[in-house]
């Protein structure tokens, strides 16, 4: 079974995020790492390919400047190869433009199953995987908290407001996984060494047969008007607990008539 995992390479979330002062888009000029949310999809893919008795796990990523450090992390976990789409024309892409690029690249890998996170940690639009599914003509199941593959269909426990639904879908399909769907492995030293020589196909917009006007800032049909500081809450009272923390909370709850 061939599984494609969408992997986003993002600025380190631990560092303070910055916006480009001109475009108001997220500054991605620094080092990028694999979005933690994608580790679950990578692990799920490895386990599903393994239990299906073979097949390859291929990573697909769109990133600026030929960035591969996040892909190397996923390759070190055990993925076989990666497709990287990197092209200056892609800067400023909106979610639909990104989906067009990813879908064109994914189609090349002829997957049985496409996995992605429910949303990225940096942009969190949460629509790209479903847009990819529609572009590929695949069914999709979002918010999976459990995924099993049985021959030519996938069975998913899908998160709902009330609990969860058991959902089945024929393959090929797109499934988005929540964090916690599986416990991602840590790359072993051997895995890290092996990842250095695993193949990464570098593609451009032209390679994918897409028109430049469909993607990047040229294809984006939404614009950022401004970014301003949010209204701040008035400063509260912050105190060290000296055994009186509980009493202070009781007094506060009384003052706002909750108790």
């Amino acid at each position, binding site marked *: 079974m061939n599984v494609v995992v969408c992997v986003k390479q993002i600025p380190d979330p631990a560092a303070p*995020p910055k916006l480009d002062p001109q475009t*108001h888009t997220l500054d991605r000029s620094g080092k990028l790492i694999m979005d933690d949310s994608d580790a679950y999809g990578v692990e799920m893919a490895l386990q599903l390919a393994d239990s299906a008795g073979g097949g390859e796990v291929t990573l697909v990523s769109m990133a600026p400047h030929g960035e591969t450090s996040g892909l190397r992390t996923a390759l070190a976990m055990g993925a076989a190869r990666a497709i990287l789409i990197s092209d200056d024309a892609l800067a400023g892409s*909106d*979610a*639909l433009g990104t989906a067009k690029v990813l879908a064109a690249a994914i189609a090349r890998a002829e997957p049985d199953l496409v996995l992605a996170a*429910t*949303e990225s*940690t940096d942009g*969190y*639009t*949460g*629509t790209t*995987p*479903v*847009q990819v*599914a*529609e572009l590929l*003509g695949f*069914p*999709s*199941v*979002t918010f999976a*908290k459990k995924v099993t593959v049985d021959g030519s269909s996938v069975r998913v426990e*899908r998160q*709902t*407001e*009330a*609990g*969860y*639904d*058991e*959902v*089945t*879908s024929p393959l090929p*399909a797109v499934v988005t996984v929540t964090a*916690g769907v599986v416990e991602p492995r840590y790359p072993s030293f051997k895995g890290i060494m092996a990842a250095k020589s695993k193949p990464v196909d570098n593609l451009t917009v032209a390679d994918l047969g897409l028109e430049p006007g469909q993607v990047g800032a040229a294809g*984006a*049909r*939404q*614009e950022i*008007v*401004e*970014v*301003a500081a*949010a209204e701040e*809450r008035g400063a*509260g*009272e*912050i*105190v060290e*607990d000296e055994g009186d*923390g*509980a*009493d202070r*909370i*009781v007094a*506060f*709850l009384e003052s706002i008539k*909750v*108790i």
Partner: protein
Amino acid sequence: MPIAKVWVLAESTDSGPLPASLELLTEARAVASTVEAVTWGADAASMAAAVGEYGATTLYDVGDLGGALPGSPVAAAIAALVEAGNGPDALFVPATYDGRDIAGRLSVRLDRPVLTNIVGMAEGDGLSTEHAIFGGTQILTARFSGPGPGIYVVRAKSFAAEPSGGPAAAVVAAPVPELGATGAARIVERHVEERTGPKLDEADVVVSGGRGLGSAENYALIEELAKLLHGAAGASRAIVDAGWVPYSHQVGQTGKTVKPNVYVACGISGATQHMVGMKNSKNIVAVNKDRDAPIFSVADLGIVGDVLKVLPALIEALKSRS
């Protein structure tokens, strides 16, 4: 260009229309002269009364989906209506599991982009949208620059729901066209996780726990405190990911948006992901060991201390009062 017509995706729940859909109908009335709604499921008649009460004049009914996941069929039905020439200038979609699926599918079918995570809107030379970024410390304003209809995915509780007292909306059938493979995902069985007490996103008091609790067993303290305050128990993404509590407890970007009278954050540092879901609570109490935790920047009362000491003392104090 002024907004003439807005459609609102009217999602139903076991207990009637989704509150977020009613919020969007209210906002649609404020920005557009004509408000219409789109729904699916078995009960269009009661939905027509509910959306009419909030100002929709027409309800497009996609009908019963026969167990199919809504994303593909509902998007296809809406696209067919738009292609027939009666489309709106804007479609407002609540940011739910199904709402996001429908918005994504529709975006491709219409070849229109989507704006997601909207927390506010302003009208004037078209609609502009507000998005909370960087943990809600910054508000980004965006707008569509191409032809409509724009697809707007809006977070719950961004607007207050107020009825207009209108009559039931006229129901118009919106049939699902042939879908091919995209519509093949089917719900085989539904599982409802029992919860006691008020719902997380409706409770007046929310008590949430995070990593600072140290272990899954200590989440019982959160549940006990929530019960004593007649509130609901919530959680940070960190402990949901760790498997301590079900996803349905999660407050934040990927989880529920809550706006209670008082929010008590216990052992939660206040990651961006969490703050977006709770920082508009009326009163915020935080207990955390780390004085530099971001949660203290939004707290009305912050206790720098060990939750495992403060919570048991607080529970005892509340018990001795009742």
